[in-house]
């Protein structure tokens, strides 16, 4: 694993007027270059975690270190220049009148000189494959395209870490795939670290590492293969398991000698082919 980019140490957060902690003494690290999926039922504290990481809320207990430096009201702007967020609703995060204005918005705020700004906007839009939409107005775009523009807006600021807070949950299957594919490519290219907060277990299965949240607590962390071994336990937590894991289980129950529950359909098909050729 790479070096620690962000560390959470015993973080607790409670919303005003609530008796229960939304985030209940949680510790974990985020490593450079990884794709970390955070899953958990509605109200398990996932989105609150995202807000804490970006300094939209501050914990009542514990510390968050970004690149070794504590995240406080004083350091929040520095931390935000390193951590970009993409939210759930594509219609709530478009601020510019055109695609390029929207991407430039954050750069203007950061006081980037114009020639560099133009360059960065262009680059960012190239990376999400939206370069031909420079002067389009947002209402002409699909949900998936809007989210890609939102990602470009984040990329232009050259962050180390991008947080997707259920960024694909309002999209249709095609839009969802577009966005995930874009993020995957970016991650491969420039060592972007990704935190994806999601209900999509198929997406989480493709992450490098997973964190399972339950009622504000960190319930389990590990690689997807290990997490999905929990099968029934995950379902009790209000979650689900990927299709190929379910099917592997059913096949094993019917006496097909699979070596393990496969996380991807490709793996499962491959093993079935091997078994078939031996029969």
């Amino acid at each position, binding site marked *: 694993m790479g070096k620690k980019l962000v560390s959470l140490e015993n973080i607790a957060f409670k919303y005003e007027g609530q008796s229960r902690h939304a985030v209940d003494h949680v510790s974990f690290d985020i490593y450079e270059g990884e794709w970390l999926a955070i899953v958990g039922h*509605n109200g398990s504290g996932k989105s609150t975690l995202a807000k804490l990481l970006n300094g939209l809320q501050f914990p009542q207990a514990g510390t968050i270190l970004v690149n070794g430096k504590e995240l406080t009201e004083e350091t929040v702007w520095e931390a935000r220049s390193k951590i970009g967020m993409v939210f759930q609703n594509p219609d709530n995060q478009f601020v510019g009148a055109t695609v390029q204005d929207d991407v430039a918005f954050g750069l203007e705020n950061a006081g980037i000189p114009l020639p560099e700004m133009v360059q960065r906007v262009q680059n960012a839009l190239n990376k999400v494959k939206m370069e031909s939409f420079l002067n389009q107005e947002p209402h002409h775009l*699909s949900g998936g395209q809007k989210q890609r523009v939102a990602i470009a807006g984040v990329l232009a600021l050259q962050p180390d870490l991008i947080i997707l807070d259920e960024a694909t*949950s309002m999209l249709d299957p095609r839009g969802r795939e577009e966005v995930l594919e874009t993020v995957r490519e970016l991650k491969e290219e420039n060592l972007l670290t990704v935190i994806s907060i999601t209900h999509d277990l198929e997406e989480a299965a493709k992450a490098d590492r997973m964190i399972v949240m339950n009622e504000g607590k960190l319930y389990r962390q590990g690689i997807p293969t290990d997490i999905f071994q929990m099968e029934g336990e995950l*379902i009790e937590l209000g979650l689900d398991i990927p299709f190929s894991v379910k*099917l592997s289980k*059913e096949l094993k129950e019917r006496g097909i000698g699979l070596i393990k529950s496969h996380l991807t359909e490709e793996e499962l*098909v491959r093993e*079935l082919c091997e078994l078939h050729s031996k*029969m």
Partner: protein
Amino acid sequence: MRITLQDVEYRYQINTPFEHLALHDVNMDIVSGSYTAIIGHTGSGKSTLLQHLNALLKPTKGSITIGDRTIESGRKEKHLRAIRRSVGIVFQFPEHQLFEETVEKDICFGPMNFGVSEKDAKDRARKALEQVGMDEEILEKSPFDLSGGQMRRVAIAGVLAMEPDVLVLDEPTAGLDPRGRMEIMDMFYQLHKERGISTILVTHSMEDAARYADEIIIMHQGTVFKKGTPFDIFSQPEQLLELGLDVPDTVRFQLKLQKELGVRFDRPCLSIEDLATEVKKAMERGNR
């Protein structure tokens, strides 16, 4: 209550430079007590179609019959309240429409707007909350103090409290966690079975379409591309894939296995259990 569409066309901003044809030549017959799934891409006309189902939009050509009322293009329609009461629409992200001070007031708003007395509306609110699996305790709370999942349920309860004969559901579980999704879908199915409520589900989830619907209607480029039982529809998965639509996980897996393993399946499997059994049989056939 039966809903029939005849040669329905709908143009947005007709007679302006922005005129846009959203629906054309749409014919369908949704019989009383049925469960229909409507699938199709974003932009295929699904949302425009569903707004016709309770006369929020009126066709620019053709006609639509909802129960004993016929709505025709080119005619001024009045007194549509009865239709709006009997066809309840749960829009996408319905929690965005919550507005009252308390959960109780929010749920009562619809029925009282249609002339139900305050006392009866309150009774209905309790019943509707129970149906969506929520506790009476929250009646006095502000809907804005609830979690996203709870808000969704309260919003749905607001539609159920109108006691509609037809329920139109537009992606009712988007953004919910897997358990919430299953609970809500099962709840709608139970209402459909127990009370014979006609249910029309607009969805991207082929699993839900396969699991709950009696009939699936595929919308493509503003018109009905195909309709049939889930079994019919998913018997020709290539057709759906060509349109860029998904097929259920189980069917997609069958296709992969046919390709990689050279085994043949004679029918689509619509549940994981069924698929596992068929895969086993196919593997054993290969043995001989």
